[in-house]
């Protein structure tokens, strides 16, 4: 089932990617130019970092809706501390730690208290955003030292810095998933959590780590975002959860866990990034972009659902889970 699904979904994805590029180049003459394509990583890196960790979360059968709010919270912490006279490197470290802490809170609520991930992170989405708003009281924090802008606006050769940051982390996550015991456990928990528990694996610890990673990468995304926009506000990162989840699901990771991987997510991300970038170049309203992304999410879930139905093996394997839902 896994192989069948992976090969078909990758072929379909490449087709979708080509189609997206064709449509976008029709929408705007500035889309398919070398300058724009080189700049593309700048626009999807923040969501991309989050999507990497989101892949792991979804592989375990969970979900993290709070990522966008963690971005807002980390950004505000960075801005407020820096404005309060703390040196920028320390403020940045604090922002990352806040991301980690937020992820641990999610992980704790999911694993120790036992609240389902979707409700946990729906609630913490509000909690974290509210704290960000409460701390900043709606203000924006500006005036960072010049070297900080390298992260979000700098170049290495002709390439934006984000390309290397995202590339390195994508590689690291791919290795983590495919080459380490931790990665195998992530897949196994998504396949059959109960069996993993009976086999004596510490399922809760793996899940806690996965949510912590998700929070930390959201914190990192906040740093990149603030550096790119030169300003930190509480509403940064709003809607990131939609783009990240869409990239992951479009990339072939099953929403019920156990199947998928990083490279699919990267392809899915390219599609989401190209749609966002192309439509922005064509002056299409952000809410309408949101509508298209939402449509892509629903359509890709539908497509993969259909594919699983066509694969008889998959069907038998999932019957049990579906009866319960």
């Amino acid at each position, binding site marked *: 089932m896994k192989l069948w699904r992976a090969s078909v979904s990758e072929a379909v994805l490449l087709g979708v990617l080509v189609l997206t590029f064709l449509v976008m180049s029709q929408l705007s003459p500035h889309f398919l130019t070398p300058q724009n394509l080189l700049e593309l990583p700048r626009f999807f890196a923040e969501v991309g970092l989050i999507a990497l960790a989101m892949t792991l979360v*979804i592989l*375990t*059968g*969970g*979900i993290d*809706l709070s990522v966008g709010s963690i971005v807002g919270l980390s950004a505000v912490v960075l801005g407020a501390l820096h404005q309060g006279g703390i040196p920028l490197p320390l403020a940045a470290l604090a922002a990352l730690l806040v991301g980690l802490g937020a992820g641990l809170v999610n992980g704790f*609520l999911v694993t120790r*208290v*036992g*609240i*389902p*991930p*979707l*409700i*946990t992170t*729906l*609630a*913490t*989405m*509000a*909690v*974290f*955003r*509210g704290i960000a*708003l*409460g701390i900043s*009281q*709606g203000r924006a924090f500006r005036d960072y030292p010049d070297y900080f802008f390298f992260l979000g606006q700098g170049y290495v050769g002709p390439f934006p810095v984000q390309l290397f940051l995202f590339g390195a982390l994508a590689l690291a996550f791919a290795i983590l998933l495919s080459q380490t015991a931790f990665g195998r456990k992530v897949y196994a928990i*998504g396949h059959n*959590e*109960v069996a993993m528990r009976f086999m004596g694996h510490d399922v809760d610890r793996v899940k806690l780590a996965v949510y912590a990673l998700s929070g930390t990468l959201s914190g990192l995304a906040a740093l990149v975002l603030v550096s790119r926009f030169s300003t930190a506000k*509480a509403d940064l990162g709003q*809607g990131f*959860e*939609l783009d990240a*989840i869409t990239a992951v*699901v479009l990339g072939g990771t099953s*929403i*019920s*866990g156990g199947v998928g991987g990083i490279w699919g997510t990267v392809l899915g991300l390219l599609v989401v990034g190209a749609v966002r970038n192309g439509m922005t170049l064509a002056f299409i*309203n952000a*809410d*309408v*972009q*949101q*509508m*298209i*992304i*939402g*449509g892509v*999410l*629903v359509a890709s*879930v*539908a497509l993969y*659902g259909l594919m699983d139905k066509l694969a008889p093996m998959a069907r038998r394997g999932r019957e049990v*889970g*579906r*009866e*319960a*839902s």
Partner: protein
Amino acid sequence: MYVDRARQLSILGFLLLLSLALSLYAPNFFQLQNLEDILVNTSYLSVAAIGMMLVILTGQIDLSVGSILAICSTVAALASKAGMPIWAVFALALGLGASLGLFNGLLVTGLRVHSLIVTLGTMSLYRGALIYFTQGDWIYDLPSDFRAVGLGRFLGVPIPIWIALLTAVLMSWLLTRTPWGRGLYAVGSNPMAARLTGLQPSRILLAAFTVNGLLVGLSSMLYATRFSAIQSNTGIGFELLVVAATVVGGANIFGGSGTVLGVVLGALLMSTIGTTLTFFRVSSFWEPTLRGFFILLAVAFDTLRGYRRGVWRRGGAR
């Protein structure tokens, strides 16, 4: 049937404590006008929360209610401005809400994907479609018969409160006294058993989503008619308020239990807290934090009591 009297009593107890604190710190909270405002806010929230409870009873969720509220408010206002009689505007808002809810339901039952993902998508889909058509413009100069719904009175009591009361009584009767209502509870508490007794879970889910949409449409008529303009960002974050009211009111997020009375009390609590912040001089920026916190608190109680814990743990996100 299990009724969570403890939850209902603890909400009342909490409201009592809150009133006590308010009478010490901010006695002008107890002006008639302010209390009436809270009840009117409760009215549209509780109508939507009763709808959400139907969905939650079956073990699903609908995140798109804020967008449905915005679409119904906007279309109703535009239709009313175009000269449509008020009863037809009501029918339009309810019908539109029901169709959007039905669409959610069809996606959920057709794709067999958990409603969280489906409605996360349709939340953006509906909102984007609305902005596409209105271009983000606000709607002003609403006709007087439209605004009379939100501002008018019957026997001295604001009309929204009457409508909410009627809805609550009707839904309570439907849920406790009809096979349709009992079916929702049955599917939510044990889908397998429900299927084996001859119920059709997918048809019941479809009904829950449709009636939820219908009630959000009704809620939009109580909400939109109170203001002098319909904003393009109407209802953003509404899903959170509604889910909070529902789960705080004792509807179990795992499905299968919940009462109309509890949910109405939950709505009363959430709208009271919203108003209270102002009186305690706390910035309204903290309000989302408080909502999220109440959801966590309510669900943690349910979870620690151990209802159907296994199903959700195994199912993960679904």
